[in-house]
């Protein structure tokens, strides 16, 4: 027997679970941060004039168009070059969150803009203040409208998080790559990893559709 390669065994469970945990962690961080930032930026864009929007929009266009893998490498190389190297989790979280924000902001902007001016005027005519109208009318209606698109972005972030492996973050894909090079069992391992992404995404997208039906207005 070749002692260089050792087959997959139950002892690898902990290692795999670390990868699973790290994938979930960075996905949750990026979805939460990207959602909050995206909500703020999306709202600001829905409320701003053309010029401000053009400037805002260009930055977001860059974030959306440059492939995530390049943004990850550029960012972690850049912070290293200016003498502030970051650990892969921090660097990955920042890049993935901003990337998520860029998509979420468009989603939320569409939602806020879907609430008609005349609906807002009706609320104001009842004596509601600007902020009361936003809190009680515009946000709840806008957010319901975008739930399906939000879910779509969130699911793709879970999958995109695999790319953070390129800067050395030990998420599921990277742990599995290392297991593959040790065990030489790519098929079993990659099928397992694929299954994991499926098991996470499928119920989420179903739950999303359920929520969508339930909140249909």
């Amino acid at each position: 027997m070749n002692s260089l390669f050792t087959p997959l065994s139950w002892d690898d469970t902990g290692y795999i679970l670390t990868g699973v945990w790290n994938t979930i962690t960075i996905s949750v961080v990026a979805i939460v941060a990207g959602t909050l930032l995206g909500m703020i930026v999306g709202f600001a864009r829905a409320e701003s004039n053309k010029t401000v929007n053009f400037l805002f929009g260009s930055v977001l266009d860059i974030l959306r168009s440059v492939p995530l893998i390049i943004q990850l490498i550029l960012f972690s190389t850049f912070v290293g070059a200016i003498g502030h190297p970051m650990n892969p989790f921090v660097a990955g979280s920042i890049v993935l969150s901003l990337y998520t924000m860029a998509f979420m902001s468009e989603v939320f902007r569409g939602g806020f803009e879907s609430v008609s001016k005349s609906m807002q005027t009706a609320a104001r005519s009842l004596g509601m203040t600007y902020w009361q109208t936003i809190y009680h009318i515009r946000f709840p209606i806008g957010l319901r409208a975008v739930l399906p698109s939000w879910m779509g972005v969130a699911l793709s972030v879970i999958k995109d998080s695999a790319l953070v492996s390129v800067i050395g973050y030990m998420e599921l894909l990277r742990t599995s790559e290392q297991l593959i090079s040790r065990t030489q069992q790519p098929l079993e391992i990659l099928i397992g990893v694929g299954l994991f992404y499926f098991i996470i995404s499928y119920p989420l997208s179903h739950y999303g559709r359920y929520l969508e039906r339930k909140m249909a207005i």
Partner: protein
Amino acid sequence: MISVQNVHKSFGDLEVLKGVSLDVPNGEVLSVIGGSGSGKSTLLYCINAIETINSGKILVDDVDVHSKDTNKDKLRQKLGMVFQHFNAFPHMTVLENAALAPRIVKKMSKEEAIEIAKKELEHVGLGDKFDVYPTRMSGGQQQRLAIARALAMKPDFMLLDEVTSALDPELVGEVLDTLRLLADEGMTMICVTHEMGFARDVSDRVAYFHQGVIAEIGEAKQVITEPQNPLTQKFLSKVR
């Protein structure tokens, strides 16, 4: 009383109100008629401080609507407004629609707000719809909800902007009946309308708007049946 004094209003280069003066005493129902673009809606929006004015003055119970010192949100509580579009809040039940403003604007307790909302919904004939979502109701029902929602704020005046124009013909009657009820109860109202029968029968006076000025104003029956101004005559012969 609502007092409009020589109001001018422009959108950019377009002068929409060209010196409008008008007094609506308490208890009066005034219908405003006129062609498209003559400034009828703009006048209501200016009274409710949704739009600013360029010159002149509007007083609501002696409060200068467009003064910097006037709290516009507070002022609007006195002025109920209903629009052509129903604008029901789609994420709330009928009862929640009507109870929202009393609760968050007037800071009533939840129980108080619900009680007043129920009363006004019953008032407009929606007593059996409390827990329904407005999108499941007819246009006529949604428009009556909009009226009840405004009434729940206990306004002293109602401003109505073509509230039947978006309705299917067979639903117009139920909304006009509701307005007639309010008129009988003594509510002070300014109704922009294309319903000449309503203007003639329900209102005390009718004002005819033509290109940003009041071309004729007078007792309702007289203006509708025997208009004095040739412009009014021409307009009425076209809408009949």
